[in-house]
């Protein structure tokens, strides 16, 4: 039996007196699509940030692909982020003065070496073949999010972490982005999506529901719909 890709055990994160995460434990197998849900302030983004190596746990353990995130130094964390993780943010977070193509290549640059052809192919796959030389200000929200997805995939990460990826999109673009996530899932990618949307939650294999920093329930998506 293969070990889970993500292992979280008694994970805690405190900000002063506040417990953002309180003894959270779960595993994620490679190829799973997990939706992390819960009200605002329940610790969803904190959990994603720790798994993405953007934040450190206060206690407990979080391991991805066998790497204990809490034990990594600054340089190792940078390497972990570039090699293992693909981020998709609600605010897209593209560099405003770089073109769509250069934004994708930026992830390659911090990973190892740039390959313009591969970056172009990634943008073609998300349907942006004709928007490569546009800067973010010239792209719609949906197009910007597709650039972010291409950027997240370019280094073949083990884990895609998406924080409210459709939160700033209209319905049409939301459908496009969800379709892309579906394709990624079908292609065998492991995806953790933070979302408020029940509809998106239902697309996932499992839902983790957080309340006040605690894992309230884990359910198979098709069972959760009441």
């Amino acid at each position, binding site marked *: 039996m293969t070990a889970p890709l993500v292992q979280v055990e008694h994970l805690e994160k405190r900000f002063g007196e506040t417990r953002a995460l309180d003894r959270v434990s779960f595993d994620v197998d490679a190829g799973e699509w997990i939706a992390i849900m819960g009200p605002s302030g329940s610790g969803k983004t904190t959990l994603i940030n720790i798994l993405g190596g953007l934040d450190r746990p206060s206690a407990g353990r979080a391991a991805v692909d066998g790497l204990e995130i809490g034990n990594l130094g600054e340089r190792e964390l*940078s390497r*972990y*982020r*570039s090699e293992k993780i693909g981020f998709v943010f609600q605010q897209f977070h593209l560099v405003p003065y770089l073109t769509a193509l250069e934004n994708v*290549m930026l*992830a*390659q640059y911090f990973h190892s070496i740039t390959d313009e052809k591969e970056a172009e192919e990634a943008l073609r796959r998300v349907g942006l073949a004709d928007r490569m030389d546009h800067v973010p200000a010239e792209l719609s929200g949906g197009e910007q999010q597709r650039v972010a997805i291409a950027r997240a995939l370019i280094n073949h990460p083990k884990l895609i972490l998406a924080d409210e990826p459709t939160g700033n999109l209209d319905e049409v673009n939301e459908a496009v982005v969800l379709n892309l996530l579906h394709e990624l899932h079908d292609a065998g990618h492991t995806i953790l999506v933070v979302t408020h949307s029940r509809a998106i939650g239902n697309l996932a294999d499992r839902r983790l529901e957080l309340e006040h920093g605690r894992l309230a329930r884990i359910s198979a998506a098709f069972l959760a719909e009441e």
Partner: protein
Amino acid sequence: MHTPPMFLRILWKLLGASRGRLAIALIALTSGAAVSSALLNVNLDAERKLTREFRTLGANVVVAPPPGGGNAALADESVPDRIAALHATQIVAAAPYLYVAASSGSQPVILAGTWFDQVAKMNSWWQVEGNWVSSRADQEHCLVGQTAARQFGLAPGRTVQLRSGERTISLTVSGIVTTGGAEDSQILTSLESAQTLAGLSGRVSLVQLSVSGTSAEIERVTRTLAANLAGLDVRPVRQIAAAEGSILGRIRGLIFWTIALILVLSMLGVLASMAALAMERRRDVGLMKALGGTVPRIMRLFLAEAGTLGILGGALGFLVGVLLARWIGERVFGIPISARLEVLPITIALTIVAALAGALPLRLLGRVRPAEILRGE
């Protein structure tokens, strides 16, 4: 089509994205570089011109036999030729002297035989009433120091009889010379006349040299001379060398501190722009870190940006500085100051240092925590 490496692509975009703030930093750097370059140009040219002026203010190196040997301690007349054979371009003039204890009537006087053409080169301030002796081969004329002229009642056109032991010579006074030095009490004539009177054919007491350059350069020439003139003492005239060194040192010091001050001011100008830029770039840096960028790799981009500004500011400043130096030269010194190419790399290097120092606020970006930035804090 060939595309530049990603590092250069990002650098180019960074420069374009913040051109407003960077333009202010560039103006600060260019201004500082212009003043620094102008002062360096003025310094180098003024130093060269001043050392040239100094070399008309008397000998600053003396070559003589070791003291305490009487007539046996005289040097050979060939010493100036041996010095000339060294082809030391910094030796402006070399005048041999033979001092003879003579008398005119019953009163003693020092007769100095020398080469007048060389003496003229290194003593531009000597004032002559009457005529200078034009040729070093002239054995009929002499110059009389003003004190000696008063003592012996001599004037241009008069004849003076000089005796040393059994030998006598008769010289016509060509001019009365005022030097402000020991020569005022002496009679100066050609080397050959003095040798004839003393019966010391082919001998000299010493050779006075005028050597241009800084104290260190003069020391270097002195060492070369000493190595090539065995058996002779080569001594710099300390007071003159020290005075010249002190004046040049003060000018250099003044220029050094002015440049340092100007560069600190430019650096502060850059600092203000970069501090604002650092705030604007927090989000970009947070994102770059999230994508796996290490602090040194991200900082390299910003340092390269500051370095580029330094190179641009330095090169532009150099060009403006050349014009400024020319203007200062004409207004202050009344001479055109020419562009010195060696100032270009110095100006660029100094401006890069100022730009990098001014970019210090960007180092704070290394502390940006991506989780906070991406949350929008």
